[in-house]
C-alpha cells in the first residue's frame, strides 16, 4: 500500500464556497498544507527575497538564508555575478555553509570535503581516485550533474530575489510596474545596512503575511499614534494591489492643511491626555521626493518593503514549522547618509522592530489567532471590509482587499 503523502492528504482540502473573504482556520494549523506550501509556493512560481547586494560587496562574500524552510546560499562570484543555491551538499545532504555569513574562495562541505565553486558547481571530490588504486568514485559518476541545486536569481534596486521555478515571470512583470515603482521610490540609491532584528512569531507564517496586507488593523491595534496625539486627521493614502492580486502597497500621505483642519488637529492634540516627553523619535525628513510618510509593500509570499517615516527596512518571512515563524528585519539607510541622518534613523527605529512602539503588537496578535484557531479547523475567518473582491482603494485604507488578494495568490499556487 502506498504511503499517503502530504500532497494526497492535503488533496482533500477545498476552499469553502469559492469565497476569498473567508479562510478556514485549517490553513494555519494543518501540517500537510504546510508541507504542500513548501513545494507549491516557496519552491513554486514565486520570487523570494534572499539578500541585499550591499551585503555581498566582494567576490566570495556569501550569506546563508532560507526560502520557505529550505536553506539557501547567496554568493557573489569572481565576475561579480550573484548566484543562489540550496545549502545542502549533493553528496550526503549536510549544510555546506553552517555559518551565516563569510567570504570564501570556494564552498567546501566539511563532512567529506566535496568542493563547489561560488556558483554551486561541483569542482572537487576528496579521494576521487581512491587510495593506492583502491576505492574512489564510481566510473559512471558525472560531476556536472552533482552541483548544488540552483535557484534563478534577479536583482531589483539592490534587492536579490531567487526562484526555484522556471515558470516564474521576470520580477517586474511578477509584481507589476505600479508596485515596482514603489521599490524604485523607497530605494533610489545605494543602500547601507544599519543592522538586523529577528523576531520569533508564535504563529503560522500566513498570519504575518496577512497582517501586512491588512491596512484595516493599523490604527486599531497599534494605538501609539492616537494615544500620544500624533495622529493627523489630514492624512491621505490608499491601497494599491497588483493585477494578479498577490502583491500590495498601502501608503499614507501628508496632504496640505486647510485652516480649519489645522484648528481641528490642535483641538485634538490639546485634548490628548498623554504627550511625548521627547518627540525626536517621530521626527521625519521627507527624503524620497514626495509627501508619503508610510508605505508598506508586500511581495508574495514572503517579503515586506517598509518605509515608516525615515525607517527603511525589508522584512523576510521565514516559516519554521506550521505554528512558528521567524521574521528577519534588515534595517537600512543610504550609503550617503551623514551622521545626523543616521542618528535620526536609529531614533525613529524605536517605532518598529520586535520592540517597536507601533509594531510590537504584530508579534503577539498572530499567536492569539493561532491559539484560538487550533480547536476548530473548519470554522473560518470573515473578511468583508471593502467588499468581497480584490480591488484597489484610493483614499481609504479601511479595506481587507489586499488580504483577499493574498488568499487569491495562495489558492492559485496551491491549486485549491
Amino acid at each position, binding site marked *: 500500500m502506498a504511503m499517503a503523502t502530504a500532497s494526497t492528504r492535503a488533496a482533500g482540502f477545498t476552499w469553502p464556497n469559492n469565497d476569498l473573504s473567508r479562510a478556514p482556520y485549517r490553513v494555519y494549523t494543518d501540517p500537510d498544507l504546510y508541507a504542500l506550501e513548501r513545494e507549491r509556493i516557496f519552491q513554486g512560481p514565486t520570487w523570494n527575497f534572499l539578500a541585499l547586494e550591499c551585503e555581498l560587496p566582494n567576490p566570495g562574500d556569501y550569506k546563508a538564508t532560507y526560502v520557505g524552510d529550505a536553506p539557501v546560499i547567496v554568493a557573489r562570484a569572481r565576475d561579480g555575478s550573484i548566484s543562489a543555491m540550496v545549502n545542502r551538499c549533493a553528496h550526503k545532504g549536510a549544510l555546506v555553509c553552517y555559518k551565516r555569513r563569510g567570504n570564501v574562495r570556494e564552498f567546501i562541505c566539511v563532512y567529506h570535503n566535496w568542493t563547489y565553486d561560488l556558483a554551486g558547481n561541483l569542482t572537487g571530490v576528496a579521494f576521487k581516485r581512491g587510495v593506492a588504486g583502491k576505492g574512489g568514485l564510481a566510473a559512471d559518476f558525472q560531476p556536472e550533474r552533482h552541483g548544488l541545486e540552483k535557484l534563478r536569481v534577479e536583482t531589483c534596486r539592490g534587492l536579490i530575489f531567487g526562484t526555484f521555478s522556471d515558470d516564474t515571470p521576470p520580477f517586474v512583470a511578477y509584481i507589476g510596474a505600479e508596485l515596482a515603482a514603489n521599490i524604485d521610490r523607497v530605494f533610489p540609491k545605494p543602500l547601507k*545596512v*544599519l*543592522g*538586523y*532584528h*529577528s*523576531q*520569533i*512569531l*508564535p504563529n503560522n507564517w500566513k498570519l504575518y503575511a496577512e497582517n501586512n496586507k491588512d491596512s484595516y488593523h493599523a490604527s486599531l*491595534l497599534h*494605538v*501609539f499614534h*492616537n*494615544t*500620544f496625539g500624533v495622529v493627523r486627521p489630514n492624512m491621505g493614502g490608499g491601497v494599491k494591489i497588483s493585477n494578479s492580486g498577490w502583491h500590495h502597497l498601502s501608503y499614507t500621505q501628508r496632504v496640505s492643511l486647510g485652516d480649519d483642519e489645522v484648528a481641528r488637529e490642535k483641538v485634538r492634540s490639546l485634548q490628548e491626555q*498623554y504627550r*511625548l*516627553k*521627547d518627540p*525626536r*523619535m517621530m521626527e521625519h525628513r521627507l527624503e524620497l521626493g514626495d509627501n508619503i510618510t508610510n508605505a508598506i509593500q508586500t511581495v508574495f509570499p514572503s517579503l515586506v518593503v517598509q518605509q515608516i517615516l525615515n525607517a527603511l527596512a525589508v522584512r523576510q518571512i521565514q516559516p519554521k514549522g506550521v505554528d512558528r515563524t*521567524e521574521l528577519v528585519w534588515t*534595517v537600512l539607510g543610504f550609503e550617503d547618509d551623514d551622521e545626523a541622518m*543616521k542618528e535620526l534613523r*536609529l*531614533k525613529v*527605529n*524605536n517605532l518598529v*522592530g*520586535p*520592540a517597536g*512602539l507601533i509594531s*510590537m*503588537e504584530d*508579534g*503577539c*496578535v498572530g*499567536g492569539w489567532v493561532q491559539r484560538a484557531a487550533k480547536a476548530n479547523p473548519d470554522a473560518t475567518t470573515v473578511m468583508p471590509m471593502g467588499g468581497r473582491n480584490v480591488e484597489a482603494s484610493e483614499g481609504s485604507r479601511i479595506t481587507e482587499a489586499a488580504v483577499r488578494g493574498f488568499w487569491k495568490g495562495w489558492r492559485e499556487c496551491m491549486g485549491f
Partner: protein
Amino acid sequence: MTIDSAALDHDLALRLRVEDFYAEYSHTIDDDRLEDWPGLFTENGTYRVTTRENFDSGLPLALIYCDGRGMMEDRISALRTANIYEPHVYCHLTSALRVLGASGGEIRARANFTVLRTMPEGDTTIFACGRYFDRLIEEDGRLKLRERLAVLDSRQVDTLLVVPI
C-alpha cells in the same frame, strides 16, 4: 608583595555599591515599578538594547534606543497606555559583575544577565541572556547610569520586547 588593605577596602566598597545598584535596577523592573526605571539614569543618560549579531559587526541598530530620560519615560507611558501585549513578569539574574575602572568620577562596569519571563498562562522561559556594558556616575549621593548597553546573546527576540532589560 604586600596587600594594600586600604586600596582593597576601597575596591570592595565600590564593588558592593555597584552590586547593590544592579540589584536595585533588577528589582525596579521585576517588581513592576517601571515608572522609577528612568530615574536610575542621569538626565541625559542613554539606554540601548542590541544583539550580539549587530554589536560584533559594528552595526549601530538597536532594538530599543533611548537618548535621555524623556525617551525612557515615553517608553514606559507607551507600555502602560498604548502598547498591547500579554502581561508578563521578568526575573533578572545578574552575575559576573566586574568594575573595569573608575576615573574622573565615572565608573565603568560590566555584568552578565539572564532574564526569565513568566507569561500569564504560567510558562517560565529564558527570555534573554547577555551582557551589560555600563558607565555610572554618582549624583546626589546615588549611583546613576550615564550609559547602559545591553547586548543580547541571541539574535532572536521571542514574540516581542516591551519591558526594558
